[in-house]
């Protein structure tokens, strides 16, 4: 069964950093497939990223490629794992289009059976969090697509047929593990929109068996350590994924957190 890993741009960019670690630590196994439509995300272009001293390169199959673009697709044939790296956030108000026009057709086209969504959050409403003391900084929810009996029922709270709370919550779409810090998903969360559009696309329903939701509780700051810790959890989230012995960071991580040279003249700017 083919798997697709989708990191959502969220608090501290932890899912992106985690994806960077996965891709660059296993850069000899992953290969660049193609650029995905970036119409619905903030514009971004950057140089090709790489690991210092590494003999391999994620883009070795495409030597013509000299820039990274906002949304790119990679594939690991050994693990039958596709990975999306999304380097800029989705434009406000266009999340629905991104789900419907970019992700849903891709799942149908690649015959994806398992979708793994990684997310990060720094605040959680009482309406979602588990009542007892938080046991783990990770939350893992599973949605078995074939076992959804009443599709419209799952989303009817959003349709305001049963809108009794100010922030509608869905507690049935995902079954969260006992260690999770949340028991349901809020309709404000991107994952809710994603599920809605995927489960309303016929081509997706023909192939997709499950959606796995992996949410990480973090505080904003230098989140590289959070990403390293989250990487340890990946084998539990993606079936058959190996434990990575040595995590390797790409060169773009150098200087991200305040290592820019101090300005020496007025013209270089007042602030670092």
């Amino acid at each position: 069964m083919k798997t697709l890993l989708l990191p959502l741009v969220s608090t501290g960019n932890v899912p992106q950093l985690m994806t960077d670690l996965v891709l660059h630590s296993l850069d000899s196994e992953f290969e660049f497939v193609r650029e995905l439509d970036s119409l619905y995300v903030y514009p971004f272009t950057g140089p090709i990223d790489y690991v210092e001293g590494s003999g391999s390169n994620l883009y070795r199959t495409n030597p013509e490629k000299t820039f990274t673009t906002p949304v790119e697709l990679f594939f690991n044939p050994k693990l039958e794992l596709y990975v999306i790296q999304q380097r800029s956030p989705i434009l406000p108000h266009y999340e629905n289009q991104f789900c419907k026009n970019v992700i849903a057709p891709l799942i149908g086209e690649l015959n994806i059976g398992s979708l793994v969504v990684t997310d990060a959050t720094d605040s959680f409403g009482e309406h979602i969090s588990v009542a007892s003391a938080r046991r783990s900084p990770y939350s893992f929810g599973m949605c078995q697509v074939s076992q959804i009996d009443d599709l419209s029922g799952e989303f009817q709270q959003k349709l305001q047929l049963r809108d009794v709370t100010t922030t509608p919550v869905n507690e049935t779409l995902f079954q969260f593990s006992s260690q999770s810090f949340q028991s349901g998903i809020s309709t404000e969360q991107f994952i809710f929109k994603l599920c809605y559009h995927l489960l309303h696309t016929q081509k997706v329903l023909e192939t997709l068996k499950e959606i796995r939701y992996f949410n990480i509780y973090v505080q904003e700051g230098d989140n590289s350590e959070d990403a390293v810790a989250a990487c340890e959890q990946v084998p539990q989230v993606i079936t058959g994924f190996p434990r990575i012995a040595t995590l390797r960071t790409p060169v773009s991580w150098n200087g991200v957190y305040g290592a820019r040279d101090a300005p020496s003249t007025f013209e270089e700017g007042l602030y670092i």
Partner: protein
Amino acid sequence: MLFKQWNEYSEPRHYLDAPLEENADLDSLQLTPLPEVVLEKPINTSGFKRAFIITSIFRSLFEERLACAEHISTFVVAWQTKGREQHLYREDYQAQEDSKSTDETKRLEFPVHKLDDGTLFICVREDFLHVPPISINLLSREIAKLCRGLEVLLFGSSDRVERVKYVGFPGNVGKGLPLLTPPELVANFTASVMTQLLSSKVCFNGYVAPSEGPSGYEKLSMETMDLLIDLCWSEVNFGNREDYVKSCHRNWRLNGTVMGAQSGLYL
């Protein structure tokens, strides 16, 4: 003096919301309509060899030429803003009972000029306060379509580079200038049009200049400007170099895109 913590909620850094639209229903499951981008009059590009694409801070480099350039068409971007409730207040600041909701159509025009016999010229004015990024993305896509088969020269800026950098496709060869290195990056219109040119496989050469300030309100340093004048003069035949340098400097000051002591501290 007592400092109060007025704002207890700190917005996460990845929320890049420009103050463009106040649409309260952010968790809507409906698709938002896309802006419309049309080229008012079709252009037959077979008579052209190259296209210059710049953002408005680089306009001063071409000002003299543009004065006698022919305006051949216009990209029109139009979008509908959702009815925003405007509360009307009486003189005593009490809200009146009625509030009016207005649906507005916003419209932007980006002219396409014929700079000389074989050259198209497109200058895009960015403005993060008033131009939604989706329209910039759509405009870039249309510009890339128009430029198929042409050689593009791109002038863009980024606040994430330290020096003027060369960008190009195919082959990112440098032309004596440094290339982008991680973690440098380009955003806004320059990135959008680069992405579209790359995905349409349009050949381009370009320069990304270091700038400061938000999209549409950037400032460049004098050193950067002098280097750009040199680059532009060697790429385009502008005649007498001294005259060209003088006119660029003059226009640059007039447009207010210079940063630093040279531009004057006070107005």
